[in-house]
């Protein structure tokens, strides 16, 4: 039987506010345990939550960027359950009435096709603290620094049909929240993570299969692997005569498999009800319009502009706009170069990205700045050096930090375009290889390559390739 995979993602993006969603505590990552938890975060008797307006603005930014409806009135509810890292015994979260509803996001698939993914909702909520089970001699430690950190939970429609689509969608959301400067996107620190709802059904069947929810996936690779594993597990189960049960599962990255965490029957009854400590969140036109006016150019708009104005392919434009910083770098190179976007794009996606990846750096930390790269590319454009030599120069720039011109000058890499110099090299090669010359002239055409190589070698690779070809053809012909 042929199977179709159905996936919906719930992405948790930690909002980049300075203080927590309902208290004035700082949200900075990595502080000593419990040093960023005040009485409100600790759930002390008598304290009350006060909503952080910045978190609301960020949710609105996201909503507008995805063409969603911004609820003029949304409601914070209490999700009740006991756990030591949940100080109040309930989490404040928007439940029945979220602030953002009905958005969409377009993703670009590997085969070049585009697909619209629905965003059911995005709602504001507070994060819980952390339970630390190691290093306490059989006891557990509680760190409440994270308790009360604002999250935007972004829930997709079950529109995704493969692990690859899920990753493309997640990456696109990741790109978007960083463009909007509402989330730092740091997955190691848990600022951006997701739960995946996965089910399978026979191709052509209208109703969904029973789904399993895989919790807390914090890398794109894990999302892809966990979904692929889960899809295979479900298909094997059904084909073996079994049934998928609705449950929550955990992905174990070491074993590359998902494991059952709790079944539907074991699920908590969270007893949601509107939080009486918080008034319904009212959002006026004024706020919406001021947020709209301040929206940056979004990745899709930028990619379209790169296609239209720079003549880039959809794929290249997509790669370059994946982060606002990379796109900015690329644009600076084009500007420094005064055009020649295709050359700039190739270098930014090729040599530059390769060097960044190799050294594990962000584009902001690049050892070769945009102006410096533009300086190098200008030397290709004006035929001072060949593309091949340019790669050598780039490596030198990367390690030595000097400009392209300095390196070209110091290493004498300037391309030879002087006809007589090239002719001298050719004459020399012809003189030292009389046998090959005779064979070539007797009809062995493929020896032409041999002469190109030898002549290039004689000029230390600096001869202008086009000129060399032309002169060589003439001279060899006698």
């Amino acid at each position, binding site marked *: 039987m042929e199977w179709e995979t159905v996936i919906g993602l719930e992405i948790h993006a930690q909002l980049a506010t300075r203080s927590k969603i309902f208290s004035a505590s700082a949200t900075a990552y990595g502080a000593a345990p419990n040093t960023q938890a005040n009485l409100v975060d600790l759930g*002390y008797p008598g304290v009350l939550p006060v909503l952080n307006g910045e978190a609301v603005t960020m949710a609105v930014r996201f909503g507008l960027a995805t063409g969603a409806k911004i609820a003029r009135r949304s409601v914070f509810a209490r999700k009740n359950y006991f756990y030591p890292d949940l100080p109040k015994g309930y989490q404040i979260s928007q439940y029945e009435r979220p602030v953002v509803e009905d958005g969409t996001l377009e993703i670009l698939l590997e085969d070049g096709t585009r697909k619209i993914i629905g965003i059911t909702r995005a709602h504001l909520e507070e994060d819980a603290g952390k339970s630390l089970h190691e290093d306490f001699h059989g006891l557990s430690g509680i760190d409440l620094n994270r308790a009360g950190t604002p999250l935007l939970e972004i829930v997709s429609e079950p529109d995704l049909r493969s692990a690859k689509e899920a990753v493309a969608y997640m990456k696109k959301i990741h790109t978007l929240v960083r463009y909007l400067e509402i989330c730092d996107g740091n997955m190691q620190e848990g600022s951006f993570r997701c739960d995946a709802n996965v089910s399978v059904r026979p191709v052509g069947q209208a109703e969904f299969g029973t789904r399993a929810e895989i919790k807390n996936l914090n890398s794109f690779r894990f999302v892809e692997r966990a979904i692929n594993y889960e899809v295979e597990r479900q298909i094997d189960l059904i084909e073996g005569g079994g049934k998928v049960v609705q449950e929550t599962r955990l992905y174990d990255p070491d074993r590359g498999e998902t494991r059952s965490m709790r079944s539907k029957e074991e699920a908590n009854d969270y007893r949601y009800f509107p939080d009486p400590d918080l008034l319904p969140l009212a959002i006026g036109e004024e706020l919406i319009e001021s947020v709209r006016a301040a929206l940056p150019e979004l990745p899709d708009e930028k990619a379209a502009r790169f296609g239209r104005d720079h003549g880039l392919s959809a794929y290249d434009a997509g790669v370059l706009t994946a982060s606002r910083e990379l796109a900015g770098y690329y644009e600076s190179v084009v500007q420094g170069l005064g055009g020649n976007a295709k050359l700039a794009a190739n270098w930014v996606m090729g040599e530059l990205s390769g060097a960044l990846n190799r050294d594990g750096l962000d584009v902001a930390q690049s050892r070769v700045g945009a102006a410096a790269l533009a300086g190098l590319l200008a030397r290709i454009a004006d035929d001072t050096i060949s593309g091949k030599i340019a790669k050598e120069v780039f490596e030198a720039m990367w390690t030595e930090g000097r400009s392209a011109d300095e390196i070209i000058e110091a290493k004498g890499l300037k391309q030879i375009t002087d006809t007589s110099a090239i002719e001298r090299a050719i004459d020399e090669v012809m003189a030292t290889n009389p046998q090959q010359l005779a064979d070539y002239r007797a009809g062995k055409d493929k020896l032409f390559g041999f002469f190109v190589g030898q002549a290039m070698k004689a000029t230390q690779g600096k001869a202008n390739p086009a000129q060399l070809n032309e002169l060589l053809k003439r001279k060899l012909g006698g």
Partner: protein
Amino acid sequence: MHSLTVAELAAGLRARRFSSLELTLHLLGRIERLAPELNAFITVTADRALDDARRADERLAKGEGGALTGVPIAHKDIFCTDGIRTTCASRMLSNFVAPYDATVVQCWRAAGTVLLGKTNMDEFAMGSSNETSHYGPVRNPWDPARVPGGSSGGSAAAVAACLAPAASGTDTGGSIRQPAALTNLTGIKPTYGRVSRYGMIAFASSLDQAGVLTRSAEDAALLLGAMAGFDPRDSTSVDALVPDYVAELATPLAGLRVGVIREFFDKGLEPGVGKLVQEAIEVLRAHGATVREVSLPALPLSVPTYYVVAPAECSSNLSRFDGVRFGHRCESPRDLRDLYERSRGEGFGDEVKRRIMTGTYVLSAGYYDAYYLKAQKVRQLIAADFARAFGEVDVVIGPTAPTPAFGLGAKTSDPITMYLNDIYTIGANLAGLPAISIPCGFVSEDGRDLPVGLQLVGPHFSESRLLSVSHQYQQLTDWHRRVPPGYE
């Protein structure tokens, strides 16, 4: 000195007829002598009181300070006090010292008051007789065999017995007004949002409101003025101007439109109580008020509505008492579940557990719509009834409680009977309206004079009017000046 009102004490302090220290020492002496038999206080803060009094005297000597500088007060033990134990009358918090002051505590402190101590109450404010306290029941100064009402029973007994001229209270379903009625005090529950809830340990957040118990409406005006106002730390507090309640006390009764609530004169109302309430209404009519009957048809549903909404909220509010960060923790827990179960099992009393279980049930999947959601709808109907009535009249009026103070233990075995004691007070909480109870006479039972309360409810933010009507009534009557025998 101890039977003087706050207004009289304030005048005496400013005239230097006595110092705050003399006054405070006198009241601490009375508390030491008389409070134990009433069990009115959980914590007496003598050292703090003397410090506060000395500081007040310094200011008064320099001609500084406001109307309340040097006036001793007591706080219900539900308000967090920085460095002083705050128990909520629960074993759960018997060791809890808050690291901060509630806004109400801050406000009264800033006004120059002297803190005498923290008063007894029903555990987590859940009760109508002050019998659910972990620290034992409070006795009514008018008859020690009877309850003072609840949940602000300690505050009521302390003020009625002239151990303190005024005390704070909280009112979720009548917890200021009913004890005021049962102990011959003036007790006001302001509009929901008028007074900050920050630092007031939550019972039912959408109903809880802080207020004050005093021996006159004028005193209530003074003290409410010092606690009311917007607080950015409480999202439900209202950013609206606080009127000069004292200045507005002079508003005459003439032209006042009074609506007598038909539903309150039901078969549950003790005839003696009903008669005194009617007489009080006649006093208002005789002095220029027009009186008509109004009907609030949804009001009889207020008790069942309340006993869905309040437990639902309390079941969630009390989840934070889990033995992890503060409060009672059981000995040597085996595991997390054991820690939760025993800490909470040991820390909470029966009435609190009953309400947590009721609240958990009404919020459960499959029951939410039938109970919680329906109760919220009825709540809107009740609020709509009041709103309709306030289209015709300025205040609605009736008894505060169906009976005078009842005997200790008389209703403890049957929670429903106990709950019905709040039948006349709950409506104002459900609708978020301000309401006041004032003394309107005495009935005699077993050879004892037992006070009866008259209740007035007004539209949102009509505290001024409620206080002025009460004050004008108190100019015409002297019920409020009577002090229980033995406490004169």
